[in-house]
């Protein structure tokens, strides 16, 4: 068995299984481990508070609308995430891989220029946001090593993917796939889990605030 076959076969299955099992485990723990009931009388609706926060946090906080930093984070954040999801789910090589290994996606892949453009948006967003962690004193203080590993791994996965765009080399394809597998294994144990947990954390914060009659 060649290394590429190993990466496409057993190692793919192993890493995907670790990803699914542990991500599901964490979500179940988050959802089903109860919290002690708040005893104070509610001053507002937790449900509305949760809803408002889940949706409201898609936009910068109104009080920060005049603030360049808030706009930078919003634009770079959308640029990175939308770019990443488009290229992940709609780029031809990914659609082909997902169809072969996971599920028969019902949509057609986007043209190559769309793939490249979405990658460029994703890279521009990721690079600026990651660098900010080093040069913004406040964000530097709240950044943990995990944040850097998560950003770094994501970057290197994207970079090797971009290097394999020529689709001429089994080595580059294997390198990209191997790093994707490493990323999948790291995912459930890291801040990358925010991919799934963001509605819960926003919802929880919002519900708590809603209950107190304030806004998150």
């Amino acid at each position, binding site marked *: 068995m060649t290394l590429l076959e190993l990466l496409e076969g057993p190692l793919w299955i192993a890493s995907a299984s670790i990803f699914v099992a542990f991500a599901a485990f964490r979500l179940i723990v988050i959802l089903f481990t109860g919290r002690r009931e708040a005893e104070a009388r509610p001053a507002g609706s937790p449900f509305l508070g949760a809803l408002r926060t889940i949706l409201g946090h898609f936009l910068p906080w109104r009080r920060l609308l005049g603030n*360049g*930093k808030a706009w*930078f984070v919003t634009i770079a954040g959308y640029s990175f995430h939308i770019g990443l999801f488009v290229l992940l789910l709609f780029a031809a090589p990914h659609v082909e891989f997902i169809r072969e290994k996971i599920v028969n996606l019902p949509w057609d892949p986007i043209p190559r220029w769309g793939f*490249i453009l979405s*990658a*460029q948006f994703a*890279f*521009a967003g990721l*690079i*600026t946001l990651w*660098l*900010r962690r*080093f*040069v*913004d*004193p*406040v964000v530097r203080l709240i950044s943990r090593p995990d944040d850097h590993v998560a950003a770094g791994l994501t970057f290197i996965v994207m*970079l090797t993917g*971009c*290097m*394999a*765009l*020529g689709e*001429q*080399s089994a*080595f*580059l394809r294997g390198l990209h796939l191997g790093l994707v597998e490493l990323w999948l294994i790291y995912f459930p144990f890291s801040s990358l889990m925010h991919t799934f947990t963001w509605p819960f954390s926003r919802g929880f914060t919002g519900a708590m605030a809603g209950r107190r009659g304030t806004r998150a």
Partner: protein
Amino acid sequence: MATNKGHSAVRLLWSLLIPAFFLMAMPALTGVGGLRAQESGAAQADPGPPNTLGKRSDAEIWHDLRLGAGGIANPPTGSPEAGSVINSEGWEWAKLRNPEKSPIVHYGAWGLLAILGLLVLFYLIRGPVGHGEDSGRRILRFRLSQRIVHWSVAFVFILMGLTGLSILFGRPFILPLIGKEAHSILLTAAMQAHNLFGPIFALFLLGLFVHFLRGNFPSLVDIKWLLKGGGFFGGHAPAGRYNLGEKAWFWTAVIAGGALSVTGFIMLFPDDLATRNTIHLSELIHAIAALVMIGFSLGHIYLGTIGTRGTLKGMVDGYVDENWARAHHDRWLEEELEKAESGDQARETAEEGA
């Protein structure tokens, strides 16, 4: 040697094949010999072998082709180069870009090595330039947005530089070290990354231009700074927000980076944006601008890191020590302190840095 022999054999083969091809294809492609061949064929009872060259000499036909004799189908009508079969300028370009003999590769490699050597030498002789003791008082030098833009450009520039230099120097220098197979992998990877990150570099560079333009215009104090040797060999050299060396770097980065971006786009979209001559010219300008910018960046990186104590802090935290500013940018410090004395600047400064 083996490659050279191989090259000359290939060149010989081509030099025989290309004229042979044109001679064979001439009647079909051109009106030049073809029409005449038809005319003479119709006039004679026994057609015999067609007179492919008509009454014109080889030299005349080649001359016409080189100047783009009309009626030729390839490249197709409508394309910027319709009607031109031979591109003579291509030979000059090929000579300049021949990986083994190119003066760009040759002088480029020596130039970069020389700059590195000089920096090492300077470091060994002069060591890092300091500013005495720290004062303990800090002053804001770069806003957060300037820092993010600066490092984004630097990050992508290094990526573009490494991949670009692999493309430029790969064949003569890397291939002999790692062999053909690994080299081909390295190059396809480098080229794809280089093509994808190019437009990102152009975008970030625009951000750099906007964020650093203020303070980078020439002023009289630059002459004094120059006369004092920039303070690199001892003594104090006065400077405003940026000194002459930094201004030179800013404008080099903007002009060379701009040229790299424009010529890069031309090469990314050759069919839509250019003729072959424009592409050749773009490639040359691209390589030269890259070497100039990389060469200058080595000096900039040296001075921004180990070359001058306390400088890097300004681009990371935003703040520099007042004594650093007094040593390297005294005029700027005076202005800032005056502003701070006159009131709100200090408060603004503290807020912006956060």
